[in-house]
């Protein structure tokens, strides 16, 4: 008895040249919808400048724990001393009122590859609501809404 609603229709591309990222909406095999920056994605939190970096393979923190996203990829073991903050992805704060559900595996994801954003924990639905809608995670609750809207 599996009731997981996972939305595979959003493929996220990073544009390394402009250091911006866009979300393309795919409807079946056809690309449709508008390009919008990640800042407008309801489930993507805006990246905080002072977030603690938690992927030692991709980012380096200075002594104040500030991360530079533009540094070359190195493999020093720095920045992540506390296992509590490091789940292998950068930590950002949620956008207002929206539980953060997705974090990209790396800020320097190369182009021409598809990625699946890494899910983060959030406050769960209560039991009866979860059973009714088919998921315990509010950010995985994506009911069909006619008229071009999305959740």
């Amino acid at each position: 008895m599996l009731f997981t609603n996972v939305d595979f229709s959003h493929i996220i591309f990073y544009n390394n040249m402009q250091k911006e990222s866009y979300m393309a909406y795919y409807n079946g095999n056809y690309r449709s919808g508008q390009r919008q920056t990640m800042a407008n994605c309801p489930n993507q939190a805006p990246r905080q400048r002072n977030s603690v970096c938690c992927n030692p393979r991709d980012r380096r923190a200075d002594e104040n724990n500030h991360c530079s996203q533009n540094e070359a990829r190195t493999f020093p073991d720095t920045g992540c001393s506390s296992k509590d903050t490091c789940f292998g992805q950068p930590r950002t704060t949620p956008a207002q009122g929206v539980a953060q559900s997705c974090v990209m595996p790396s800020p320097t994801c190369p182009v021409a590859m598809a990625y699946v954003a890494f899910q983060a924990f959030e406050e769960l639905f209560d039991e009866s609501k979860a059973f009714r809608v088919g998921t315990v995670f509010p950010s995985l609750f994506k009911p069909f809404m006619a008229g071009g809207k999305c959740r």
Partner: protein
Amino acid sequence: MSGTNSDRNSLMQKISECEFMMIDLGLYLDTHPDCMPALAAYHKHQASFEKHVAEFERLYGPLTMYSVNSDNCWTWLELPWPWEMEAY
């Protein structure tokens, strides 16, 4: 059997809900094995599930053939089957 039909159905509903919470949290924990809040939530619903199942089996008989507790007869066969709705 003690209890009314609505008690039985509502208890069965609670069991299904707790079981689902465990299933979905289990899927999440498969990819996030170190996530402490998820583990805590899993254990909370696991305890609730076990409590409701014990209560159900105490009142209405075994839910699975692994929890038949009778010594002298095989009660698993005696109880109404799930599709025998007239018995509920």
